[in-house]
């Protein structure tokens, strides 16, 4: 039995739920907000939204390519479109539509990958999206982001609605505790320092930021290691200024992501660091290049070391 993350409060929610609620608030004030779904309003927590705003939701049925194409057509006619579908299908089956109809044609659709990463757990690899950062990083003209907690989620949705640019956001299903706020406003392309530190930087994204923060506590309390924790919610454009700053502040970097170790946050950071001659101990934590073991998201995280203990262990090893 694997312990769930601690420190949850009654008000903490899954980011997916916050996404849906934020959209409801936005839709009330703006009739151009349109949600497009592929039989995914239930899994996207959009049931209440659909009931309140039946004219601002377009059901496509299970047809992701068409979902994205139609969303792009709506956006080209001035609608503020959130195309919502499980991340696994949205970014694989409809990749060509994201590439051509959204990014290349510059139609400012907000593509929302729900139940991302290994959120679907034991449903298996067909339902996991461990490739989405990698494939979309190689597509020009699209912002890629994975908000970490409820605050970042709400801010990301509000900002996305105002941003006239293609965006991909991914959300998981797990209830996420609030991260300490540093007071800086949420901005795409600007990572947030969740905790200051001087020895090792733990850079997470999405649902891995919280275990990174817990790992920092273990490191300080049990090992006297000072760990800086970053929510690198935006994978592209990556916050190079913050990365450069981290190289001056810390001696080692661990990146943590709910994604394949190939092509995601870690490799994006490594690419920047190497090309700027920042040679330092560096470790990418993620899902290795294999089809995942069967289990819940929590079990899969534990199996591959994406836990507070696993992250702390890697950080200690890196500093030796």
């Amino acid at each position, binding site marked *: 039995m694997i312990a769930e993350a601690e420190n949850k409060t009654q008000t903490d929610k899954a980011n997916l739920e916050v996404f849906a609620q934020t959209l409801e608030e936005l839709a009330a004030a703006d009739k151009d907000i349109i949600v497009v779904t592929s039989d995914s309003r239930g899994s996207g927590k959009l049931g209440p939204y659909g009931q309140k705003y039946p004219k601002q939701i377009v059901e496509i049925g299970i047809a992701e390519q068409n979902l*994205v*194409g*139609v969303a792009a057509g*709506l956006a080209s*006619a001035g*609608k503020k479109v959130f195309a919502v579908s499980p991340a696994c299908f949205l970014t694989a089956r409809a990749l060509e539509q994201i590439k051509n109809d959204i990014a290349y*044609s510059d139609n400012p659709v907000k593509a929302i990958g729900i139940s991302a990463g290994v959120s679907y757990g034991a449903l298996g690899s067909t339902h996991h999206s461990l490739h989405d950062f990698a494939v979309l990083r190689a597509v020009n003209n699209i912002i890629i982001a994975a908000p970490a907690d409820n605050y970042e989620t709400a801010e990301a949705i509000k900002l996305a609605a105002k941003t006239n640019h293609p965006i991909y956001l991914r959300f998981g299903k797990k209830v996420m505790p609030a991260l300490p706020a540093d007071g800086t406003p949420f901005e795409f392309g600007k990572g947030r320092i969740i905790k200051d530190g001087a020895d090792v930087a733990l850079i997470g994204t999405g649902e891995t930021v919280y275990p990174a923060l817990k790992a920092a506590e273990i490191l300080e309390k049990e090992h006297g290691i000072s760990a800086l924790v970053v929510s690198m919610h935006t994978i592209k454009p990556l916050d190079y200024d913050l990365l450069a700053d981290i190289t001056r502040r810390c001696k080692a970097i661990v990146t943590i992501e709910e994604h394949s170790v190939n092509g995601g946050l870690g490799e994006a950071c490594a690419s920047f660091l190497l090309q700027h001659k920042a040679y330092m101990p560096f470790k990418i934590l993620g899902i290795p290049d294999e089809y995942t073991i069967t289990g819940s998201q929590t079990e899969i995280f534990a199996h591959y070391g994406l836990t507070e203990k696993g992250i702390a262990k890697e950080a200690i090893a890196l500093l030796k």
Partner: protein
Amino acid sequence: MTEKELAIKSINYRKNILKYIYAAKAGHTGGSLSCLDILNVLYNHVLRVSPQDFTSPNRDRYIQSKGHTVEALYVVLADKGFFPESDLETLCKYKSHYIGHPTRKVHGVEQNTGALGHGLPLSVGTALAGKMDDRDYRVFTLLGDGELPEGSNWEAALTAAHYKLDNLCAIIDHNKLQISGRTSEVCNTDPIDAKFESFGWVVKHVDGHDIKALMEVFDSLPFEKDKPSLVIAHTIKGKGVSYMEDVLKWHHGVPSADEYGRAVKELDDALAVAYIE
């Protein structure tokens, strides 16, 4: 514009298509010639769009799903004043915006297309937005018959009927040839009309080179209230140049100097006849 004026335009457009493909040594010759009369009638008789009002939310939209026959679109857009025709001298040249598929960097182009099976979903979304906003614009999209096996077309065909998009008109340039051979032999899609009808569309057939018939079919839109319209335009690949007509190699064949000269002569002869008629 009269039927005669349009017929003369078609011949001049064909000459221009060949001129720029010959100069670029690249282009989709056969398909550009097969869809040309459709584009001529759309832009000169049907579409409520001009270079001046291209950003108007009320303009009619034309989205070319079969993006590879972009030369036909370029020639017509230039004639409509979207850009100087001399721009086409840069067709497919280093750093030119006039690439081998439509892009929005060219004034008058609605969407970046080229990958097949994208025009219909984009058109469905655009038509749906028009319905939501009670705008009276119409959306036209041109598909090749060779792209019909793309599944996204059929997904979008369902959605168009589901949302009763009678402001949407899809046109199939049915020239019955694709890069590997006869469409019926590569992947038989017949009967196209019965398939779309069963999906909830209203379908009309037309001779895709008969200017008058094209004018009439588009004048009768929407074919039925609350249903999307499909025009199956029966065309001939390479239409207008005798040795190119219905010959596979002209899918993206580029004429030699001698062939180009013969084609221009044939079209000039046709022009002389058209003026007299």
